[in-house]
């Protein structure tokens, strides 16, 4: 019951967005369908006349059909980029087979006697096609269009992965945020749309033969109208491409909107695609993580969050108190790194691992040497300290630095358990005493582990020190876990633009962006 209420509340709140996405979805479905009819129908009719080519044409269309849709979108990105073009093209390819095949079968199954009579009366081949074969093939033809349409409604949800909009935006956003009402808000309308289109086209398919001619005209007209839904004018100066989680999270885009009054013209796409999309100028503004190595790769500018809409995510090591009490020498070693790593340094380190393909251990060592902190391993035989890390580059590098320091400065041994998945797994392992230390972020501690109510969180986030003190205090009290002093960098959400464009438009901060969009 509460799910239904949640869904109702969500729909009420997002009615405008839902309508927009539904129209986009219908538009996507029908543009591609119209293209497929435009190409597939003549092709299907042509192969009734050149039957030697029928096998090849139907075979090719059949193979296209077997490519998994998500893979097809992937193949198209290098060629057509992201956005509507590859989405429409992919949907077009999927619609081809049923349309070609049914046009072909429809015409081929027209009673041979009827065809012979028509030819015997003196119809030309064109007259035979247009006056006899095509009208008689229409029910089968419509069945093909119907199949393609229903297929398209389903596949079109994937368009949200490549910034082409549609109801997939809610679905992927909902999956990213583990927000079931949001998933349903996309999935239910998509399913209803499929059922509705199927029903309407089925009516057409079973219509009496003599009504089919006006019906086909009507259908063509409907296709054009519905296609146009997608081409509604877009007047915004800058296009934003957001990952589903950022678009939906309270401390993501909705937070920006609340703090800055920022109104971006957004499209949703897969997180893996946003950097490339902005680099290729498919979009102008993206969300990302402020220390991501890709910022360097793609020459992006991180816009300063001058009004502190994003909570701070300062990195620091978490240590169990019993471990510190037992090995007091650790305290000093752990604090060696405090404040030494800036945002840009961490970005550069991530870049070296992700793109220059240097091993995390080598990157860590080079950094420590440069800081004058590195010492050779003492190959100690003391107790073993177990280090954990989540499953991404930055954490691997940090864990590696720490283990090199412990080995160089103490006689303790180190066992690294890297790649422990997400926050929940790492923290639970620490709390249960299965690991001793792992790197965490203040914002994550605040939001994910402590589940601080938004009202309380909002009072804290403007000041990063305040967040740290709050989090450290509660962790000590509730879990017996110590937050060491932050390492220096803030791996938080960030808005980014191409360096060049940002320089030209003189946008340095999010306030600048807001001012540029709505002077």
């Amino acid at each position: 019951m509460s799910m239904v209420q949640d869904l109702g509340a969500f729909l009420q709140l997002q009615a405008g967005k839902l309508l927009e996405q539904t129209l986009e979805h219908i538009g996507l479905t029908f543009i591609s369908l119209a293209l497929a009819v435009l190409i597939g129908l003549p092709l299907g009719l042509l192969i009734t006349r050149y039957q030697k080519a029928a096998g090849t044409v139907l075979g090719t269309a059949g193979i296209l059909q077997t490519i998994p849709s998500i893979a097809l979108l992937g193949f198209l990105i290098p060629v057509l980029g992201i956005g509507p073009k590859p989405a429409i093209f992919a949907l077009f390819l999927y619609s081809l087979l049923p349309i070609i095949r049914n046009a072909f079968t429809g015409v081929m199954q027209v009673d041979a006697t009827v065809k012979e009579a028509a030819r015997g009366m003196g119809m030309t081949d064109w007259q035979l096609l247009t006056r006899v074969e095509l009208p008689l093939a229409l029910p089968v033809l419509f069945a093909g269009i119907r199949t393609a349409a229903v297929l398209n409604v389903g596949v079109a949800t994937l368009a949200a992965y490549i910034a082409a909009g549609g109801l997939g935006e809610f679905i992927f956003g909902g999956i990213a945020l583990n927000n079931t009402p949001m998933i349903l808000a996309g999935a239910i309308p998509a399913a209803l749309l499929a059922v509705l289109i199927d029903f309407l086209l089925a009516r057409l398919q079973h219509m009496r033969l003599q009504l089919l001619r006006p019906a086909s005209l009507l259908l063509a007209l409907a296709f054009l109208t519905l296609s146009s839904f997608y081409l509604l004018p877009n007047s915004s100066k800058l296009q934003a491409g957001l990952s589903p989680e950022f678009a939906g999270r309270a401390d993501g885009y909705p937070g920006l909107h609340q703090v800055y009054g920022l109104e971006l013209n957004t499209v949703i796409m897969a997180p893996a695609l946003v950097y490339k999309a902005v680099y290729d100028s498919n979009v102008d503004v993206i969300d990302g993580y402020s220390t991501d190595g890709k910022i360097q790769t793609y020459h992006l500018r991180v816009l300063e969050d001058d009004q502190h809409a994003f909570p701070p995510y300062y990195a620091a090591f978490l240590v169990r108190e019993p471990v510190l009490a037992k090995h007091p020498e650790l305290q000093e070693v752990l604090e060696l790194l405090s404040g030494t790593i800036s945002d840009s340094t961490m970005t550069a380190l991530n870049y070296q691992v992700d793109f220059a393909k240097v091993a995390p251990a080598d990157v860590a060592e080079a950094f420590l040497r440069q800081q004058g902190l590195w010492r050779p391993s003492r190959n100690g035989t003391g107790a073993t300290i177990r280090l954990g890390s989540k499953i991404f580059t930055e954490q691997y590098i940090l864990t590696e630095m720490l283990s090199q320091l412990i080995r160089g400065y103490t006689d303790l041994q180190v066992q690294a358990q890297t790649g422990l998945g997400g926050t929940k797994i790492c923290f639970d392992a620490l709390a249960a005493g299965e690991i001793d230390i792992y790197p965490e972020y203040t914002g994550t501690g605040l939001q994910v582990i402590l589940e601080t109510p938004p009202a309380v969180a909002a009072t804290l986030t403007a000041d990063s020190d305040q967040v740290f003190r709050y989090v450290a205090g509660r962790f000590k009290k509730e879990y017996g876990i110590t937050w060491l002093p932050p390492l220096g960098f803030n791996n938080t959400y960030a808005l980014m633009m191409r360096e060049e464009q940002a320089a030209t438009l003189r946008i340095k901060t999010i306030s600048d962006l807001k001012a540029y969009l709505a002077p």
Partner: protein
Amino acid sequence: MIRLQNVSKHYGALAAVKDVTLEVKEGETVVLLGTSGCGKTTTLKLINRLEELSGGTIAIGGTDIQRQKPEELRRQIGYVIQGAGLLPHYTVEENVAVVPRLLHWQKSKTVTRTQEVLTLLGLPPEQFLTKYPHELSGGQQQRVGLARALVTDPPVILMDEPFGALDPITRTHIRREFRSLEALLQKTTVLVTHDVQEAFALGDRICLMDGGKIQQLGTPQELVFRPANAFVARFLQEHLFQLQLQVLRLRQLRPYLPEVTSEAATAEVLVSETTNVLEAVQQLTAAGAPQQLVIAPHGGIPAQGASVADLMAAVAHLTPTLGA
């Protein structure tokens, strides 16, 4: 009217029609008869170029058919096929009006003529014009098919198993109607069938084919009494007695029948001397009580009476004189 000169048709190495020469006179009905695969349908389709010639020539009204576009040629030839081949998405009216539309007739002329020809074929326009083929019986469909071929009043009509899809009772019925249809009698007609009795009922001449070749071309009587070869004799053997009765007219039996007294003539079944023997016997049997039929007087020859036994005896006397 239609002249086929050394006509042949090959499909690769397979010869479907071999060296067929045949002339159909104006107003004549020639039946192409044979088993399936004998080349009769191919021969028919060569005439309206649904199949193209491999060799030989065909001329209609003295004009070589190769000199016209196939479509234009076909629009001038009535074409009736098995199962009628009506366009299922057209009404009866639209179906009949197909060729007039192809010929760009004026609408009013098309309408008038369509109604005329439907009336002629016993399909009252007010009842049938707006019907669709699936709402008609097989016999009605075949009549619409016939109306469609007759609507432009073409001099030549080609028929491919026109009654093949009908049940035997409807078939006999329609065939009889068809034979008495004025509009058809003047047409030069080529009709294809595998049904021997149909061929003998409808053909002025019969062209019996086998293996793509003409085995015999002649009147029904010639085929029955003077078969050209063993194939023809064997082909007709099964139905021979019936066919003999069918091709013989009462007039031919007259010399072998007793004269009838004038008082008897009024009481019995009266038939014309042009009636064939089979039909005469059928009429007599159908009448029930009477033992005799009376052949109407004709051109000075008085009326003549005969029982079935008389007729059979006369046939037995006559047939030896007709052989080769």
